[in-house]
């Protein structure tokens, strides 16, 4: 139950991409029929993706995944609009693929000619449910602000951010707005026209496609520099020979997502509620992490008091259940995850953060199994815990 980390490629997706790994290996830039066959496949993939998020095919640029799309958005906009605009607004709970490029820009310092005066980044606080307050965005915007980047839904706690409200503000102020929708595309309705964003990132492996392929939506007219420089692929926006099998696969995954979406939402919400209710009923001293209702259907994040996340994960793994944690002990840095800290969780509670995430192959029987096994694990670990006094 770790579908937020990645998803198994849909069998139809694998089927669709296979010919492009075998006989249909043409380069879309070649003028011969092999090349043209590949080019047609790429354009078909673009249409399928555009159809899923309600935009024009020309507004889609294929990338190597969510990380590249996020880097593209940040660097593409800021390097185009500098030196007049040198300020970015984001939140403290973004994925590292947003935070790290921002940290990098901050460290870059003033341009040698003094013109750039360096880059500035504002990291907005969130409330205890992980929500960004749109009014905080408004207050942070200055005449130097180039871009606001707020994720659509958080990968750890599942909270869905008020993207439409923020978009109204950025539009009013004439600032570009990017959203990292890696956790939402193919999981809930993502309509760029309705959301009102200028830029949006997504990654195939989070919606039953393969790893290493994603896209960025760039609204027509958005001014950006090229991210990868080289050939003229992707209308001069991203050089490199297209990942044809990947594009065919993400297109297929998008097409399937479109038809399965309401079913997916219904099913995962149902399973999640069953899981939440069962856990709350069977285990004392736990609570739901993230917003109770403004949350991704698939995300079941909880805080289990008095026990540590890695030891819970290891026990779950021994029972054949995959999950994840934001505990300090399981991170290479030995610090609790930045998301868990940003929502104001105490150090002790942050140790007990556990995320189950559901997907299309999970069943009620599996949820029942977790509900049977997990309370015993917690009980065993709590018996060992010096924090819990009899």
């Amino acid at each position, binding site marked *: 139950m770790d579908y937020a980390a990645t998803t198994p490629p849909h069998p139809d997706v694998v089927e669709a991409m296979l010919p492009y790994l075998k006989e249909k290996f043409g380069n879309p830039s070649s003028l011969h029929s092999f090349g043209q066959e590949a080019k047609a496949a790429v354009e078909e993939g673009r249409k399928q993706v555009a159809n899923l998020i309600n935009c024009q095919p020309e507004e889609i640029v294929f990338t190597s995944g969510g990380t590249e799309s996020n880097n593209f958005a940040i660097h593409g906009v800021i390097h185009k609009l500098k030196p007049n605009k040198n300020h970015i607004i984001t939140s403290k709970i973004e994925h590292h693929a947003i935070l790290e490029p921002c940290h990098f820009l901050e460290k870059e310092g003033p341009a040698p000619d003094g013109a750039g005066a360096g880059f500035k980044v504002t990291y907005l606080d969130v409330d205890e449910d992980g929500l960004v307050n749109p009014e905080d965005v408004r207050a942070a915007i200055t005449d130097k602000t180039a871009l606001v980047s707020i994720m659509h839904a958080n990968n750890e706690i599942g909270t869905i951010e008020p993207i439409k409200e923020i978009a109204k503000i950025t539009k009013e102020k004439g600032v570009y707005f990017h959203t990292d929708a890696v956790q939402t595309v193919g999981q809930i309705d993502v309509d760029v026209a309705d959301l009102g964003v200028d830029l949006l990132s997504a990654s195939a492996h989070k919606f039953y496609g393969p790893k290493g392929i994603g896209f960025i939506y760039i609204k027509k007219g958005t001014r950006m520099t090229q991210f990868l420089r080289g050939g003229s692929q992707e209308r001069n926006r991203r050089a490199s020979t297209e990942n044809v099998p990947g594009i065919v696969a993400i297109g297929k995954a998008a097409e399937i997502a479109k038809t399965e979406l309401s079913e997916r939402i219904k099913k995962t919400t149902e399973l999640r509620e069953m899981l939440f209710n069962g856990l709350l009923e069977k285990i004392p001293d736990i609570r739901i992490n993230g917003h109770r209702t403004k949350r991704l259907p698939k995300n079941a994040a909880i805080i289990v008091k008095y026990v540590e996340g890695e030891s819970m994960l290891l026990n779950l793994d021994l029972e054949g259940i995959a999950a994840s944690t934001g505990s*300090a002990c399981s991170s290479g840095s030995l610090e609790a995850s930045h998301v868990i800290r940003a929502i104001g969780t105490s150090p002790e509670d942050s140790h007990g953060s556990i995320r189950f995430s559901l997907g299309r192959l999970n069943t009620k029987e599996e949820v029942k199994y977790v509900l049977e096994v997990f309370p015993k694990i917690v009980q065993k670990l709590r018996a060992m815990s010096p924090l819990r006094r009899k």
Partner: protein
Amino acid sequence: MPEAYSNKVMEHFKNPRNVGELENPDGTGHVGNPVCGDIMEMYIKVKDNVITDAKFKTFGCGAAIATSSMATELIKGKTIEEALSVTNKAVAEALGGLPPVKMHCSVLAEDALKSAIDDYLKKTTGKGLPGFKPHDHTH
């Protein structure tokens, strides 16, 4: 999940030895891990300078649980002096090694043990373990 744990670590993690508290312990150790914020408690019974029983409670990762389990195993039946020579490295080695990022968890186990002996010495001789400074544990 961190790098793979050895079979021995997993074995102690699955079936930790000596979990719990001792009634009327002769020495109690309570330490917090300054690195990641975990907590370990160790209890010892001492008779004629020999540790006759040891128990622990741990709030921490798999390595913390396994090292406290192994540490209690290693010191049972040992004299105070012998127990003091049980270092975190010895505990880690007895477990077939630990991933490098998890070595500090074995330090916690060594600290908990020293803290228990320090408490025992204070109670019996009025003087603690020379040079022992338990890590401050702030939560």
